[in-house]
């Protein structure tokens, strides 16, 4: 009950007109920043720090503003995923898989509102998790050593098969390209630059955002250029907007999915080495394994939209656990928030909850407020968002190209990144032509580095003993799940497909 009292105190702190306005401003700006490719939550928060300082805000109001931006950007990332097939930020990548097909089937409004609701559920559950479990959850983070992290990343890659394509070999090929790209940069375990060709821009490796925007957004523009020179068939496709709200049946179908993935995403967020991208990815692939009996995932299944969105928003809440309780950022954005806390003379760490309860509980109350505000803000705006689809491609595509260039230049202010982005755009175009899925490429780039580092850390700590990898019950469990996740679809899938084929043959014979 003490917790609830503290929470009530938090609401007293957070519920002032100034703070509510700040939360509203933060949510609005965050949603827009999240939706723009290139501008993700971490940049969004970083951009607004000077605003918080200039306004002379105190600790709690600053945090309210910035966390609203954080949650807002996590919401906003899905919008461009669904409407344009261009992820607004890394974790929103998985939403493309089913969101864009839904939009093409004229269910964009449904996909947007469903993902909004899923985001709400994920964030809501995660915030409760943060309140009730933060001190205990820290212990979970401490169970994960390098060996366990390596097993976790292996699990992610083992369940990759068939997520994005029907052809497993192509998925594996794409993942291998991604892991290869992750090798670029200074190797932290030896301090030696790899594949940098003396180019100082490559020392830190390839920026995921540059890769994502290049692979998804620019290649989309190239495909458009290739197919629709002039305006011959640009207007050929009839755009249907369809209903704006999902039906009860769809919502009901998605509810178990949202609950399960919120939990998974939250856990992924709590682990400092994992983060929201892994959260949304594992959510999607687990859910596909669990409920995708008819093979509709990837073709516009509403559950495929709900799963990653609930997952990544829950992970955003989960990432606040290690940040507040350990002072260890679980994601790029929490690293920025951590810096803000430090510059406000608040030292996050094991004692934060007891030493500065007003900051912690004010922040948590703000999360609740932001979450409700985002839902209220997002649902009515869906009608406006979907109008994007009515913009003819010949106008939309140049805008996409422009936003991509400005967004990427804005991150680092260097034209080198633009060149890398164009290279990725061309590569993305080629890969699309070859029907190689793009999502595993990004996942490989995103997770490959962490996976390699953890493998080498684990091995070095145990002086070259490879059994270090299966030394704890936790890593054994993770390995078991990974191996089952990898083998089961191969074995069952064949049986299943044969049966499906048989039943289909029977059906067709009866109807004939």
């Amino acid at each position, binding site marked *: 009950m003490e917790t609830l009292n503290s929470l009530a105190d938090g609401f007293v702190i957070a519920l002032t007109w100034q703070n509510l306005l700040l939360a509203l401003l933060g949510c609005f700006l965050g949603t827009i920043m999240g939706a723009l490719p290139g501008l993700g939550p*971490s*940049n969004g*928060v*970083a951009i607004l*720090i*000077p605003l918080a*300082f*200039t306004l002379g805000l105190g600790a709690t109001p600053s945090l309210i503003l910035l966390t609203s931006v954080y949650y807002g950007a996590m919401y906003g990332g899905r919008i461009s995923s669904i409407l344009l097939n261009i992820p607004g930020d890394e974790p929103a990548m998985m939403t493309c898989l089913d969101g864009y097909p839904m939009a093409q089937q004229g269910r964009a409004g449904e996909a947007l509102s469903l993902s909004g609701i899923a985001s709400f559920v994920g964030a809501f559950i995660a915030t409760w998790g943060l309140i009730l479990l933060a001190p205990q959850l820290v212990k979970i*983070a*401490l*169970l*994960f*050593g*390098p060996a366990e992290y390596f097993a976790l990343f292996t699990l992610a890659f083992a369940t990759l098969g068939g997520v994005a394509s029907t052809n497993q070999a192509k998925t594996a090929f794409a993942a291998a390209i991604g892991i290869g790209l992750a090798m670029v940069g*200074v*190797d*932290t*375990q*030896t*301090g030696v630059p790899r594949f940098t060709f*003396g180019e*100082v*821009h*490559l*020392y*830190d490796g390839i920026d995921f955002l540059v890769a994502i925007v290049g692979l998804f957004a620019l290649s989309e523009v190239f495909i458009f250029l290739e197919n629709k020179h002039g305006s011959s068939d640009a207007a050929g496709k009839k755009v249907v907007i369809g209903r704006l709200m999902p039906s009860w049946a769809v919502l009901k179908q998605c509810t178990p999915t949202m609950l399960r993935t919120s939990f998974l995403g939250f856990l992924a967020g709590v682990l*400092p*080495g994992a983060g929201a991208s892994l959260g949304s990815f594992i959510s999607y692939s687990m859910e596909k394994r669990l409920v995708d009996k008819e093979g509709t995932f990837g073709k516009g299944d509403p559950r495929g939209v709900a799963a990653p969105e609930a997952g990544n928003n829950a992970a955003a809440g989960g990432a606040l656990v*290690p940040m507040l309780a*350990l*002072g*260890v*950022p679980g994601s*790029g954005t929490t*690293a*920025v928030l*951590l*810096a803000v806390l*430090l*510059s406000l*003379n608040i*030292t*996050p*760490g*094991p*004692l*934060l909850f007891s030493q500065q309860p007003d900051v912690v509980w004010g922040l948590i109350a703000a999360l609740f407020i932001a979450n409700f505000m985002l839902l209220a803000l997002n649902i009515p705006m869906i009608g406006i968002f979907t109008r994007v689809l009515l913009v003819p491609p010949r106008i939309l595509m140049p805008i996409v190209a422009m936003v991509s260039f400005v967004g990427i230049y804005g991150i*680092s*202010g*260097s034209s080198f990144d633009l060149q890398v982005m164009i290279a990725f755009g061309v590569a993305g175009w080629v890969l699309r032509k070859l029907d190689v899925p793009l999502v595993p490429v990004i996942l490989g780039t995103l997770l490959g580095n*962490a996976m390699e*580092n953890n493998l080498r*850390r684990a091995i*070095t*700590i145990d*002086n070259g003993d490879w059994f270090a990898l299966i030394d704890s019950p936790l890593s054994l469990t993770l390995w078991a799940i990974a191996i089952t996740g990898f083998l089961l679809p191969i074995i069952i899938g064949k049986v299943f497909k044969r049966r499906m084929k048989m039943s289909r043959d029977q059906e067709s014979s009866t109807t004939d």
Partner: protein
Amino acid sequence: MAFKISRAFLAAAFLGASAFTASAADYKPENPECIAPANPGGGWDFTCRQVGKSLQDLGLIDTTMQVVNLAGGGGGVAYAAVINKRNDDNDLIVAASSATATRLAQGAFPGNTMDQVRWLAAVGADYGVIAVAADSPVNTLTELLDQIKNDPTSVSVAGGSAVGGWDHLKVLIAANAYGIEDVRKVKYIAFDGGGEAVTQLLAGSVQAFTGDISEAKGFVDSGDIKVIAVLSPDRLPGEFSKFPTAKEQGVDAVGANWRGFYAPGNMSDDAYEAWVSKIGELYASDQWKETMAANGLAPLDLQGAEFQEFVSNSVAQIQSISREIGIIK
């Protein structure tokens, strides 16, 4: 370029002549800008934002300091960009630290040397600490180093920088000072930042942690880890005074991660002097003393020429250690 410089000189001369008190501090940057050569959230970013905020609070600059994150190459991208594109910008300062000096010393900024920029001033130093988990049987630095000496494979030391980076060098400096011959045998595990390294110490994956005092502070307060040595010449002031130095345990090792700024190489002398005095004033203010205390920053009062010399000495020192341990040839 030459034209621009002479124009800047003329302008400066004109300004100097027009004002009766021709003090250098009269130069006021119109659009003060601070480049943080890393993504938001790191130490450089913190340095820029905190100093920018304090300068404005103290009225030393009129407008908000614009912080630009120019990440890449461990600061190399920003270093090259300043030299190649912004070399005569009078409103620009760039955050730097021991990590910058380490990379300059090891030639990790291809084609760039420390003489290509003007070193402005330090704003404090974060002394290195070596820590173990609270339940570790090890209680002193000498016990830890003895263990490493007897069986280097038995102790994994975790730190937040890459191999050859500053966190790594600090352990090696200590090991070297203790008489461990082949310091390359010391098992160092690189993590992504000090926070992750401490977490792994708590998780029991590694036996020791090397990092900055600010990274360890929260966990010392909570009683999760114990600091067995601070790599400072004397005991630190205030609440940090309870930590023993390496020196008093007979290990003559000092490692300070200083934080400071450099400015473009062709910044006008007036602007340079103005920035030096502004940061000096900031450093002397009570507000900054509070910030330093809250973040575990120890005093390091160096400005202008003194700072330039300090950086050049530390580059030379790091060069010789790196050569000794075989990181550079």
